[in-house]
């Protein structure tokens, strides 16, 4: 079955988008929305079909991958790019979990979105998102990746602002899109930079790696290093935008305004990891650029630590998860920064399962509590919603790196690679471990506040608490199974390296150059990681375990120094981005425009005055005018004669 055309994979969700979009538009006029059964079926069948074809392809994929060029896209002088697809170890893994989790979440959404006015529209967006995401990971050139890159950003915008009656949702959506746009421009300029180095061909990944091989072989790396570094930096800016790293991370917490399945799918499992994917995909390039790698590592560390601290201060359950996502993405970036691209992709993979499970669980909780998101008003839900609680607790063990769960394997791998990366390794490792402790603290806090203790909400709302329907529970359970066992795809100490082998043809070359100092016994890392998780849980139990929970008053937003910490980058954006632009716009609108208008008015006034003068001269003087013209003709004749012309 390897002769399945690759374009079939993105085609399925695209067809779904068109069908569902048509249904959404046509049914928009009618009072009653479209039948939810049909729409739900359509919404799930296309992702499932895509998943099935991915599985079929993955089964028989040759080691070097599949490449198919569909047609020409842009062909102008100096620039020629084809639409082509590349299916190799890296895209296989990405596609598997993108389509798999996408299908699960589509199924979940049927229950979650039940009764919503924009039911069909929502699934059209979800399918469009899956299409873009598949194009992103399946494309064989940077430009086509960029199509997916902006496409997922667009879907993220559409889905965050899905409930567009509320303007705050729209604002969050706008923020997400604009901040992402800043990163996208970095990506775009990075592509231009690459084109300057090696022509438009090297936008193709294969040509790019061939080009880099050639550079290394010819020893010409030094010559183009500044330009390549610039390109790498610009690409990295793109990645920070999409993957919510410092400094472009402010949009992700706000993006929680969207429906929860969206948060699970887009803002936790798939889209935000596309930055990591890009780093891994271009690993060959990045491994040449030590400066950029260092920057990536530092940014990853800082983001992980900062976001973990911010997660500690949140009261909104989804916000906690959002900051947790940023923090985990920070881990992935540090791994990429030390050239451990396979480790970072592995963490992407495991993270997708447990974070999706956490978000879906949070969604089920919110669903059960009829929209309540403030953790201070929850508590004791373990008895009311046992399945949800179990799912979330399993995922919780995974994220804090409890031994045996998925997160344990991937996080340990990253920390190990950090330690062995170079002279600065132990420092990085220390920060990473500290962050792991904090992660355990805030995640334990979430679980304790939500599921343990007694219910702190109002009495009458307690009556309505119910377990989610089956269509929501099945995906959650499947994901939680993933959260437990996904780590065994690559358990070094158990001798399972399936994941690593799959990725080796793609990122192996890039990682070969990374320095490995001394080989340290992996059990020490495992032990320290376990210790960190247990310490975090212990601290949380000590601090939050007692029934002393602050009374919920007002909004769930943090206050005081907590707010300062949480909104630090929002303020940076405000002072470095928004206010200067606003001031510039004010100057342009109020100062420059007025000056130009004044000049325009002056010219007009002068012309009018002159015209008035001439008009005054005209009044009642027809004969005078005739006389003047006679005199004028006489003068003209005289001039012509005197200057020697002949009449």
């Amino acid at each position, binding site marked *: 079955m390897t002769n399945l055309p690759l374009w079939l994979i993105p085609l399925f969700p695209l067809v779904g988008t068109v069908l569902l979009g048509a249904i959404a538009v046509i049914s928009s006029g009618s009072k009653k929305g479209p039948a939810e059964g049909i729409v739900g079926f359509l919404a799930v069948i296309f992702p499932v079909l895509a998943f099935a074809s991915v599985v079929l392809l993955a089964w028989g994929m040759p080691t070097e991958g599949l490449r198919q060029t569909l047609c020409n896209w842009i062909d102008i002088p100096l620039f020629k790019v084809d639409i082509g697809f590349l299916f190799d170890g890296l895209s296989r893994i990405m596609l598997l979990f993108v389509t798999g989790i996408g299908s699960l979440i589509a199924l979940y959404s049927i229950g979650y979105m039940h009764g919503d006015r924009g039911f069909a529209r929502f699934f059209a967006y979800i399918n469009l998102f899956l299409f873009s995401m598949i194009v992103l990971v399946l494309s064989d050139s940077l430009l086509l990746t960029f199509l997916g890159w902006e496409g997922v950003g667009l879907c993220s915008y559409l889905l965050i602002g899905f409930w567009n009656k509320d303007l705050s949702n729209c604002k969050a959506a706008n923020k997400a899109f604009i901040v992402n746009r800043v990163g996208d421009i970095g990506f775009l300029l990075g592509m231009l930079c690459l084109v300057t180095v090696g022509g438009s061909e090297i936008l193709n990944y294969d040509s790019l790696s061939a080009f880099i091989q050639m550079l290394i072989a010819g020893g010409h790396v030094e010559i183009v290093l500044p330009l390549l570094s610039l390109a790498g930096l610009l690409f990295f800016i793109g990645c920070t935008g999409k993957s919510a790293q410092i400094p472009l991370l402010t949009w992700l917490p706000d993006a929680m305004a969207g429906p929860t399945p969206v948060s699970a799918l887009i803002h936790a499992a798939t889209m935000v990891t596309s930055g990591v994917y890009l780093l891994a995909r271009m690993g060959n390039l990045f491994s040449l650029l030590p400066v950029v790698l260092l920057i990536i590592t530092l940014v990853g560390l800082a983001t992980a630590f900062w976001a973990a601290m911010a997660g500690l201060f949140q009261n909104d359950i989804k916000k906690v998860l959002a900051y947790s996502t940023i923090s985990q993405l920070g881990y992935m970036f540090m791994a990429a920064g030390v050239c451990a691209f396979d480790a970072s992709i592995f963490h992407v993979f495991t993270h997708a399962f447990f974070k999706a499970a956490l978000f879906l669980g949070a969604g089920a909780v919110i669903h059960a509590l009829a929209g309540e998101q403030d953790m201070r008003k929850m508590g004791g839900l373990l008895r009311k919603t046992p399945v949800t609680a179990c799912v979330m607790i399993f995922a919780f063990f995974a994220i804090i790196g409890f031994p045996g769960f998925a997160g344990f394997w991937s996080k340990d791998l990253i920390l190990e690679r950090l330690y062995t990366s170079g002279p600065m390794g132990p420092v990085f490792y220390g920060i990473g471990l500290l962050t792991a402790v904090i992660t355990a603290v805030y995640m334990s806090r979430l679980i304790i506040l939500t599921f343990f203790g007694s219910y702190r909400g109002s009495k009458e709302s307690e009556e309505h608490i119910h377990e989610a329907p089956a269509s929501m529970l099945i995906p959650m359970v499947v994901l939680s199974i993933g959260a437990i066992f996904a780590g065994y795809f690559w358990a070094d100490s158990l001798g399972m390296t399936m994941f690593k082998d799959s990725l080796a043809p793609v990122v192996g070359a890039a990682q070969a150059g990374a320095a490995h100092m001394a080989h340290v016994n992996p059990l020490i890392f495992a032990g320290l990681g376990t210790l960190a998780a247990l310490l975090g849980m212990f601290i949380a139990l000590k601090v939050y375990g007692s029934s002393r929970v602050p009374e919920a008053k007002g909004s769930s937003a943090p206050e005081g120094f907590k707010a300062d910490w949480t909104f630090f980058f929002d303020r940076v954006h405000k002072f470095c981005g928004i206010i200067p632009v606003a001031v510039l716009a004010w100057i342009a609108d109020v100062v420059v425009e007025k000056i130009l208008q004044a000049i325009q008015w002056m010219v007009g006034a002068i012309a009018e005055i002159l015209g008035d003068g001439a008009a005054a001269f005209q009044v009642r003087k027809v*004969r005078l005018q005739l*006389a003047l013209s*006679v*005199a004028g*003709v*006489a003068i003209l*004749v005289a001039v012509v*004669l005197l200057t020697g012309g002949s*009449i």
Partner: protein
Amino acid sequence: MLALIYFIILGILAVGSALCVLLSRHPLYGALSLVLSMLSLAGIYGLLGSPFIGVVQVMVYAGAIMMLLTFVIMVLNGARDSKTPMFDGVSLFVIPGVIVLAALVGFVLVRTPMAFDETTLRGSVALTSRTLFDVAQTGPGYFILFEILGLLLLSSMAAAVLLAKKRLGSVDSDDKEEK
């Protein structure tokens, strides 16, 4: 020689009567001297070998147009307007201007070589009618012009009638103006 003498006499007559037009106070006198000027010009046409134009000049200009003018002057009683000065500041400015212009053009004219051509045709009725109407020989250009001219005359007649006819309510507007 004889032609020159006739020419000088007629020329002096034409210029003299034109000057009379310039200097006469009453328009009627001006119109009458203008008739004299036209008649002498008709003579010059004859002298130059275009008797047909001369005849047309006498009939149309001296006869029709000037009669119309005289008639209108008499109807409107233009003599009543003896208060307005004949000349004013503008006139004093015009006369030297025109004279300078004429001098300049005359200067050029005198320096331009020209002479009568012996082969020139006499402008007879036959020639004129042949040129105008013998389309096969001379082409349609003049004939079309002639037709257009006929239209022009017709339309100008209509326009004159429309303009000059007394409108309803014009008396009222007159009254208002005077107030």
